[in-house]
């Protein structure tokens, strides 16, 4: 808990005068770090809510007319940031942000990646999920973040859930189709030409969170085992942060992850605001936006 307090204090000090956070202290405010920090502060405690609300005020100003969010006002691309922003809006639960959340939800719902021009075996080029930018291919990280964002939105607010269910199904197909031979996930390419590519910890954790409704599935079991291996061999603030969140979402033992994350925070020099925000979030017991309702 002492580490959580320290992280929250560090992040409070790192907040920009405009209310947002840059990827690094002193840098311009950006949507992604601000979104994860808002979520971290939302579950950290009442003392952080004032700081969080200033962040939310900045975040909502970044929303475009079509409901989407971009990296920052000066960047015309990067629609993938809409998903973290929606998760932050849903996780903080401020009533005044409800319409912003609805607009962001519909933006995520309609975002579609392009189909690849080159046919790649097993890549499921017939399904369009989510890309980092709209003019590119589907990739694991934006697809998983978008799945989490769609799950975070209350189904009861929708007149029909058919489009939502279809997009979730498309996203899950892509995530499953891009699994690496070693059981985990990388950015979204299990092989290039004649060789197999291996998994990375962060995309593997994101994929497991996104597919958590099928915890009994052998693919999820293998993915979790691969992630556990990488905890020991590839530790970082990001990998341990997302791994801890995955452990909690999948209801797996999270103590080893938390303990390693806490030890890593103590020795890490030069952590980014993104690292700190994610760690603060991961160290909380309650992670409502990362826990999906069971499959119907």
């Amino acid at each position, binding site marked *: 808990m002492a580490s959580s307090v320290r992280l929250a204090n560090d992040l409070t000090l790192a907040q920009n005068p405009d209310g947002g956070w840059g990827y690094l202290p002193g840098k311009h405010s950006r949507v992604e770090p601000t979104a994860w920090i808002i979520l971290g502060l939302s579950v950290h405690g009442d003392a952080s809510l004032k700081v969080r609300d200033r962040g939310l005020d900045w975040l909502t100003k970044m929303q475009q007319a079509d409901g989407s969010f971009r990296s920052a006002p000066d960047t015309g691309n990067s629609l993938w940031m809409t998903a973290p922003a929606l998760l932050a809006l849903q996780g903080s639960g401020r009533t005044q942000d409800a319409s912003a959340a609805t607009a962001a939800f519909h933006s995520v719902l309609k975002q579609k990646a392009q189909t690849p021009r080159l046919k790649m075996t097993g890549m499921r080029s017939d399904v369009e999920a989510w890309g980092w930018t709209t003019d590119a291919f589907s990739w694991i990280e934006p697809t998983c973040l978008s799945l989490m964002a769609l799950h975070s939105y209350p189904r009861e607010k929708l007149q029909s859930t058919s489009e939502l269910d279809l997009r979730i199904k498309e996203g899950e197909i892509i995530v499953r189709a891009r699994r690496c031979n070693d059981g985990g996930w990388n*950015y979204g390419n299990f092989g290039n030409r004649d060789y197999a590519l291996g998994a990375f910890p962060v995309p593997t954790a994101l994929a497991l969170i996104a597919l958590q409704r099928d915890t009994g599935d052998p693919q999820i079991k293998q993915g979790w085992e691969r992630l556990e291996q990488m905890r020991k061999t590839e530790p970082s603030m990001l990998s341990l942060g997302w791994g801890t969140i995955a452990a909690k979402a999948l209801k797996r033992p999270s103590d080893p992850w938390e303990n390693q994350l806490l030890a890593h925070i103590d020795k890490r020099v030069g952590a980014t605001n993104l690292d700190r925000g994610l760690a603060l979030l991961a160290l909380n017991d309650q992670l409502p936006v990362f826990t999906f309702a069971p499959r119907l």
Partner: protein
Amino acid sequence: MSDYLDHIKQVIINRRKFIAGATAVAAAGMVGFLREGGPILTPEVFPDKWWSVPNYKPAQSPVAILKAADYEKNLVDIITHGIALCGLEVRDKVIMLKPNLVEFAQGRPINTNPKVVGAAIEAFLRLDAKQVLVGEGAGHRRDTELLVEASGLGDILREFKTGFVDLNLDDLTAVKPKSHFMGAPELYFSKTLLSVDLFVSMPKLKTHHWVGATLGMKNLFGCVPGAVYGWPKNFLHWCGIQESILDLAATLRPGFTIVDGIVGMEGDGPINGTARQVGAIIFGTDVVAVDSTCARLMGIDPEKVGYIHAAGRFLGNVDPAHILQRGEPIDALIQHFQLIDRFKKLAVKTQAS
């Protein structure tokens, strides 16, 4: 938003022109080596891509090749000598070194060796540079902490107390490209990168399974911020790999290039190839001349590498007659890298072949 829509429209228009152009090429029987990476982007075949192309070609380009047997001995002296042979002045300059830090796999020579980066830091400081930074925006993993530590670069940064700029996450500046092969009206780059006095591309000598070879110009893909374009930077592939290399090289124009050719990668590079001992470091102020020389060292004809050929039309020198070769004579060091089947045609013809 309107800029973005304009850009998308432009990309679509360019793709249509590209298809039309490729068809025209095929019809004319001019396809030397049509491949995934695209045909040679000559102005005769693709005039629409060559509008308002600047002419940055110097009359002569110094390129130095120096022997370096391994990563342990005299690297600082070798790099200092290479800088001097090219006549580069660095006093009081803020310098950013951009190594190639793509991915990490134990024992595979994917990245610029951190010891070469460390030696370059020391060499530039010895020559009275004001400050030396290291910048990179890794292309596959967004976990920079993991990559920097696993690759060994973290130890070098700590040893020299050198600042690292994550080009994926830095503050951004929108820039209008100096050439228009991609069809992008603007590109975003790290503000710090654009502010330095001297930008040094530090690639590894490697083959590349899409474009034949990855060297000083292709290394610039790491300057495109992942926070905007994602991991991998698939936007660049959709705009065309060769087109993107040309626009990035024309827009960023590294002032110096240092290629880690001590151990290169042959075969299925840039990730899955195998190590090839070359034992050289290559230097130059003209990145096109350096890339051409490196291609020749690998036994590749640079005129057959689409983007190098095109860059030779406006960015720098490919023709050996305009390259002032210094240090070791190139003929003594030429090797014939293994090339994947589709790129065997790039190889320089030898008597044996």
